[in-house]
């Protein structure tokens, strides 16, 4: 299955965080590399999305949408900084 990128989850993240997150940076808890959210690899699998680090493939986020409500698990993200 081909990977999309973090643009594909931008709508869900905007709804969860209240503003655009695509240009925010997150670091991978596994390899430490930092990427903008839009640059993460996204695999859409109903009912949600698996988000991986483009450097090491570690799962950094999982989004699940049930009955129109999205929940997010970000345990693979070591730290985040807002867009400049």
């Amino acid at each position: 299955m081909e990977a999309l990128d973090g643009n594909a989850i931008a709508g869900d993240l905007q709804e969860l965080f209240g503003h655009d997150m695509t240009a925010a940076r997150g670091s991978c808890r596994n390899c430490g590399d930092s990427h903008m959210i839009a640059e993460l690899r996204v695999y859409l699998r109903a009912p949600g999305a698996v988000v991986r680090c483009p450097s090491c493939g570690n799962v950094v986020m999982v989004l699940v949408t049930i009955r129109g409500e999205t929940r997010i698990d970000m345990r693979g993200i070591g730290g985040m900084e807002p867009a400049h």
Partner: protein
Amino acid sequence: MVGVLELVEETPQAKSIVLEPRDWPGHRAGQHVDVRLTAPDGYQAQRSYSIASAPEDDHLVLTVQRLADGEVSPYLLDVLGPGDELELRGPIGGYFVWEESLGGPLLLIAGGSGIAPFRSVLRHGVAAHSSIPVRLVYSARSLAEVIYREELMRLADHDGVDVRFTLTREWPEDWTGHRGRIDRELLQDVSWPPSEQPRIYICGPSAFVEAAANTLVGSGHDPSRIRTERFGPTGT
């Protein structure tokens, strides 16, 4: 909800949906929206579509290409009509936005319906009287699959706007443009050299975006000057 005003056939496999947004907060060139369809039994499907209209335009335009076995595109292309309503979320995204303050020179690389956000960028540049030079490289399978062909030719008449097509599967006998996939040679021919630090935006199917971005980085372009947006069939 937004009202559908009109559907415009762009190619045999793609239509532009012209929408009358109410309470639309305005958007920036390069942003997208999520379209959500809800079946009578409550089943929902959602897809992202780039906004193809400029912020200065009167109406919001989305261009939808048919995906084989698609869940959402067949409805949008075959069933939706003027007077219907669509549930939209957006505008979304900041990463893939271009506006004049970000500068240039600007290199846009589109594969297939990945041209949609660049129609917004090009129209925005013209509407804002931008003096930033912009070059577009657009890869399509055949001339018949080139979306916005006439409009892109007209846009190319503007000073500082250069439009190149490459056809990957079939081309007219007298075709003088590039033939075949976007490769290192074409990109070196079209792009400004890395020393001029062009801002580069690439939009298209995942494999197309990956190949174009890797080629540019391999030619010495700074990865931080390259913005990418991938789309493709979504698995369920």
